[in-house]
């Protein structure tokens, strides 16, 4: 199965929803030689260990749990003639589409006309969050816990605390339940959960305390986690006995290949910098799915893969303009967490463009896209962090942008 050739038309790095949907769409459009490179022993990406629903509504018109959904994606891809190389790690990317691979047989190289980065996303570990304390056993991310429980049938603790209240945080309550782990509390710094407010009822239903306005200060324990120290809303320090800490959410793109390679990185999204076609700073490289930004649903990534495939086909047919000059979209507003794409490339065939935007905090006001001091378009928002915001630039506005040739700035006015 792993008979990887020396060269191929399109090499896709990562076999999650985005990678597989890109591959499937490319095959459907008649691209012969599509290889998906997967470093794990099984394909499907993060949904493999998301033991919850709903997955697959948009893709398969029915509801799956994560592992089943991942299997369905892989089955569809293989049926379309997509070739998947498992247990194969891309260790570096280079100009010209050259990939260096590590396999069980040693190092190989693969030369592709187009390369797609669909390496997905992971959670920020304890270290990046600069949490105080020693390094006892029992500290992990929700994703690591999921794979430990669902893929290895192991459990690292019995009574952990859960840090964060994003969707994945609630999903980790479910993961715990599957393994008969009883979380002690769910801890959130803000007044309300990052995910939907009604979800704060869910842990309570499972017998887990939801502590809002509470901040993790320190992890206590040397060999194993013994307790955590938290600061409550009133500024008091409290100790919660527990034997584990699950850090959930605060996703970050797994964009190491781009960062260690030659591609530009956006310091806001932490993913590769792309134009409206998902093209990276080296136009032979594309990116799709959650490697672009933290974080979207599997269905969204799946659609992104289909769109990216379209642009790759145009690129292979040389109908996608390659122009060194393009327009940058920047922001200096502390309210704006990121904006993807970060660049607009000139094209003959002008189409509308959707900007994906996220906020750093709860905000209400007006988003405006400016070329110097001329407002190109605007969008009224009233939103929370981690919620999808789409700002559409119409065809006419795109024409205006291309004729002005000015770089763009995304601004926010409001509270």
């Amino acid at each position: 199965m792993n008979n990887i050739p020396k060269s191929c038309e399109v090499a896709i790095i990562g076999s999650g929803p985005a990678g597989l949907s890109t591959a499937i769409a490319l095959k459907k459009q008649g691209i012969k030689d599509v290889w998906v490179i997967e470093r794990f022993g099984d394909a499907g990406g993060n949904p493999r260990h998301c033991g919850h629903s709903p997955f697959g509504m948009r893709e398969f018109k029915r509801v799956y749990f994560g592992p089943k959904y991942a299997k369905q994606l892989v089955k569809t891809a293989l049926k379309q003639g997509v070739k998947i190389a498992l247990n194969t790690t891309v260790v570096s990317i280079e100009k010209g589409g050259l990939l260096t691979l590590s396999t069980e047989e040693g190092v190989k190289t693969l030369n592709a006309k187009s390369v797609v980065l669909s390496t997905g996303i992971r959670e920020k570990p304890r270290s990046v969050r600069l949490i105080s304390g020693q390094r006892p056993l029992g500290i992990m991310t929700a994703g690591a816990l999921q794979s430990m429980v669902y893929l290895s049938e192991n459990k690292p603790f019995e009574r952990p605390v859960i840090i964060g209240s994003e969707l994945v945080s609630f999903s980790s309550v479910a993961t715990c339940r599957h393994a008969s782990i009883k979380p002690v509390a769910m801890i959130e710094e803000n007044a309300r959960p990052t995910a939907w407010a009604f979800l704060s009822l869910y842990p309570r239903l499972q017998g887990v305390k939801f502590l809002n306005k509470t901040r993790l200060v320190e992890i206590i324990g040397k060999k194993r986690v013994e307790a955590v120290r938290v600061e409550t809303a009133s500024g008091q320090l409290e100790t919660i006995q527990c034997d584990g800490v699950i850090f959930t959410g605060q996703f970050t793109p797994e964009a190491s290949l781009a960062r260690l390679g030659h591609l530009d990185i956006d310091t806001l999204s932490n993913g590769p910098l792309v134009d409206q076609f998902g093209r990276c700073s080296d136009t032979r490289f594309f990116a799709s799915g959650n490697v672009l930004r933290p974080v979207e649903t599997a269905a969204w990534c799946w659609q992104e893969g289909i769109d990216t495939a379209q642009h790759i086909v145009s690129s292979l047919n040389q109908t996608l303009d390659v122009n060194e000059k393009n327009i940058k979209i920047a922001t200096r507003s502390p309210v704006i967490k990121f904006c993807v794409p970060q660049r607009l490339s000139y094209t003959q065939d002008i189409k509308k463009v959707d900007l994906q935007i996220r906020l750093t905090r709860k905000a209400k006001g007006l988003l405006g896209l400016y070329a110097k001091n001329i407002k190109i378009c605007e969008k009224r928002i009233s939103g929370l962090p981690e919620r999808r915001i789409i700002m559409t630039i119409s065809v006419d506005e795109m024409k205006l942008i291309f004729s002005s040739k000015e770089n763009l700035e995304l601004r926010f006015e409001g509270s």
Partner: protein
Amino acid sequence: MKIQETSSNYDVIIVGAGIVGCAMARRFTLEGASVLVLEKSTDILDGASKGNSAILHTGFDAPPNSVEHGCIVEGYQEYIQIRAKLNLPLLETGALVTAWTHAEENLLEGILAKAQLNGVVDAKLLSAKQTLLLEPELSSQVKAAIHVPREFVIDPWTAPTVYMLQAIKNGAKLLRNAEVKSGEFNGDYWLLKTTRGSVKCSTVINCAGLYGDKLDALLLNKTSFEIRPRKGQFLVYDKAASRLIKSIILPVPNDITKGVVVCRTAFGNVLVGPTAEEQQSRDDASVTRDALNALKAKGIEIIPALANLPITATYAGIRPATQFKDYCIERFDDKNYISVGGIRSTGLTGALGIAQYVFKMYSSASKKHQPLGSPLYPSVIPIAESEKRDWKQKGNEGIVCHCEWVTQREIKKALTGVMPAGSLEGLKRRTRVTMGRCQGFYCSAQLSQLTEGYFKEPIAKPVKGGVNE
């Protein structure tokens, strides 16, 4: 497992398998002595040795004519001599002692003079312009610097591990989970009672690091130094940061501390640290948010581009400092006992030199041994980026840790053999597994399976009756 080894009489028992204990075991074994090493922890390098800055020092700024300076010079030379045969890496970085104020700039002359006095004659003064030419990513605020071309970076774990493995390969014995509880010297030999049974030897060498003064007190009823634990916290940046600098960036030291260093590691990351915090506890290597934030700010002040790079890891180490500026190495003739205390910041470089120094001290009074004619060399897992990593080789059984590219074969090797990893920490130090940017997000599950049954403190245990649907 209890042992009764009182029938065999070792020439020396080394207490403590930190960097110094490992180098000591190697030196004494190669010189022909029979050696037993006692380590109270589940694995070697579990105390002060687990968190340092991995620099191979020339000793340019050490106190001239000190024991420390002598050991650094000898240790440095021996490392360079043996490293090829032991497959130990060397990052030929060089160092810059950087001045950021006019006051600091004025101190450079003195540092240069000290370097000359210490025999580091290739150190030279650079202007701001020359400094920035050498290190373009350095903040343009730099005023001047001293270039020390032979300050290098090494792999802080493989080096001492190889010292110990070579000792074992040539006959030394290592007992882990063996804490010394009491000891008697009868004028001829020592009888030590440990948590793993009783052992006998002619000479005891105290390499107990952070507990050195306590061991002296336990066995001699006196000690000539007092350990004053000094904690150092570090930040580790993503491998992408290693493009930013070539040299080790040192500050101008003050009376209290050598200050915050920015340097590459043998594993391709960039390190910022340490702090210098006096504390009571000898085993609390906690990191603290405020100190880490301060280090982050300091790093960005020195290399502005660090602001755009992710942090991979944080850690803290505890240096066994004492009330004295120099190492505290002393022989107690009437007791056949040598105490090797107060080996702080420079221990990684100094270890091989310290071992030579102590062996000389020992052999001037004790019986003579026949040095090994052709010592055996161990094979280890090469984990530094510059080495022949296993992921490049055939039959590696696939990568498990995707950030550090640690293979299944490497993990299996580290869990078996003459000195298998006794804990996850030990496995990390042998292979670097989980030490990369995801800190175990991708590999914890497989790792929990691969390590099942190997550790006293397991990573995880099986879900009873399987996972509920």
